[in-house]
């Protein structure tokens, strides 16, 4: 769910106002970190109040299959401090958060931190792989398409990218699942490991890889288009620049011009876009994890919605949003450090 396929003239427009030209690097870094902290605080507060607005007493669902008595019900309520005032609960929440305690999940009846920690690896594996592959694919195709602007290749890659971008992630996942897993039986239909586990270190790695193929493929197919289009438009903008005409006039070969001058300059704002869209990647992970039953944070979040298990949802939102905010702060700092235009001013 996003953001539109970049409509800006180039990526620099989008990121334009974020980087003050001039001013010391140190002050810049401090400002960025400060900004990130403010965002994190906003996430924490948002997390609490948003979920407290969600009604949902888990007690009855739990006892449905084994009717208990009134004392038992009261005991369960006390356990989850559902008997305190809203402000009292908020204070408890902040205090616990300072200790790294995100509360206890209603559904699983375990500490939320443990649950998130167990599942984060699976999501990182999926989104990390998808990110690397889609960035590589998107940048590579985008570069080639821009350089061969107007050619058959360019038209084909742009068209494919647009079509794939118009496909809902979950539907593509369903189709991929049916064709490759159910129909052709080439891949497993669900999960991260074969049921019952696999013995041995190397076979278990391969087993996980085997399970990873379809979900990662689905995510890449939908996401790479964004990177392709951004890279392509950035590079096209660069290509019309004067300094490249100079380079060509000097006798430099096309390929050299492209790879030594145009691409690196076009790459800078593209990289920032990539980090900006990590949030989108995580959103995509929720649907892909559901379709492929991939046991990560996305699936955990989805299942938590059904209850609603608000300690778990709070923790999940804080972790996901927090990760994205931290990554963006890092990206901003790195960009500032490597952008030659900024350093010289």
């Amino acid at each position: 769910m996003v953001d539109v396929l970049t409509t800006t003239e180039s990526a620099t427009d989008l990121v334009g106002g974020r980087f003050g030209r001039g001013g010391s690097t140190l002050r810049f870094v401090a400002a960025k970190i400060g900004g990130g902290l403010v965002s994190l605080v906003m996430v924490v507060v948002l997390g609490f109040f948003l979920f407290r607005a969600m009604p949902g007493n888990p007690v009855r669902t739990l006892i449905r299959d084994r009717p208990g008595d009134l004392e038992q019900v009261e005991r369960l309520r006390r356990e989850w401090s559902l008997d305190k005032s809203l402000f009292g609960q908020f204070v408890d929440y902040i205090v616990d958060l300072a200790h790294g305690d995100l509360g206890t999940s209603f559904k699983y009846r375990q500490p939320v931190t443990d649950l998130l920690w167990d599942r984060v690896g699976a999501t990182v594996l999926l989104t990390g792989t998808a990110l690397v592959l889609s960035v590589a694919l998107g940048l590579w195709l985008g570069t080639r398409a821009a350089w061969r602007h107007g050619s058959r290749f360019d038209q084909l890659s742009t068209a494919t990218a647009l079509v794939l971008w118009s496909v809902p992630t979950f539907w593509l996942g369903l189709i991929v699942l049916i064709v490759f897993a159910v129909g052709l039986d080439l891949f497993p239909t669900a999960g991260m490991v074969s049921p019952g586990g696999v013995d041995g270190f190397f076979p278990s790695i391969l087993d996980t890889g085997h399970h990873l193929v379809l979900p990662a493929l689905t995510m890449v197919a939908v996401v790479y288009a964004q990177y392709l289009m951004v890279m392509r438009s950035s590079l096209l903008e660069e290509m019309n620049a004067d300094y490249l005409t100079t380079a060509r006039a000097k006798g430099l070969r096309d390929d050299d011009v492209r790879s030594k001058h145009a691409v690196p300059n076009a790459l800078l704002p593209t990289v920032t876009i990539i980090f900006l869209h990590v949030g989108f990647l995580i959103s995509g992970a929720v649907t892909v994890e559901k379709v492929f039953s991939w046991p990560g944070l996305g699936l955990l979040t989805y299942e938590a919605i059904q209850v609603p298990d608000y300690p778990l949802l709070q923790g999940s939102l804080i972790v996901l949003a927090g990760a994205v905010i931290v990554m963006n702060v890092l990206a901003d700092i790195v960009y500032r450090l490597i952008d030659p235009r900024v350093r010289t001013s």
Partner: protein
Amino acid sequence: MSASSIAWTRRRVALGAAWKLFIANRSGLIGLIVLGVVLVLALLAPLLVDDSQLSVTKATGGVLDPPDGEYWLGTEENGRSVLILTWYGAQVSLLVGISAALLSVGIGTIVGMLAAHFRGWPSALLLRVTDFFLVLPSLVLAIVLSTVLARGLPTIILAIGVTSWSSTARLVRAQTLTVEARPFIERAQVLGGGHAHILVRHVLPAVFPLVLANTTLTVGSAIISESTLAFLGLGAPGTVSWGGMLKSALDTGAVTAGAWWYLLPPGIAIVIVVLGFTLAGRALETVLNPNLRGRR
């Protein structure tokens, strides 16, 4: 001739030139035609589709039957025709898509213009909020909102609109900064124009073409969001939508039963409609932004 009629003549001429450019762009034309067809179908749906074909108690088909002479796209779990439901579902998708996009672009435009127009801490605050929403996983936030509020079409429209406005805001802010750097704005200010006057009568018409192009593209992504939310079970009860159809297909075991006639049409419909909006939107951008012409 008065000043305003001169302005209108100028606009009309510009519009005509823009239209000619737009037609020349092949993909944009295709997009527009596709959208036209879909819009007509969607508008005709309530007139041509009989209530009994949507009723579960009056359904005559078998459960999850493959396509045959009577049901061209087979039947779903209640025995209703998949073709009829897919056709009928176009209404919800278009309605939600367009409404959510208008809301999103509306918020984004206002925030963007204000952030660029004012200086100092209001601008910084707006920028921070925009940044915040830009990086947040918007689907997660939309899911949470849809769960807190009562299920229904207004909730979905609100959830999508409120979580996807930030890229429009960024865009409009950049454009506003460019526009406000032009001398005529300064002249207006000197002549005593207040904030509202400058924003509404000068900045807004200048950013409007870009906003229009942005809106067209946003509708596409809003339709995908709506179908995703419906697929995850947060759709409006009692309405027929493409995402909802896919959810029902999954829940009733269409995957295990191999009911491809139920799983393909709603998805293909989404792709066609979103592609239509995307192509038209990109063509619109090309027309309105001369810099982009060589690059598309």
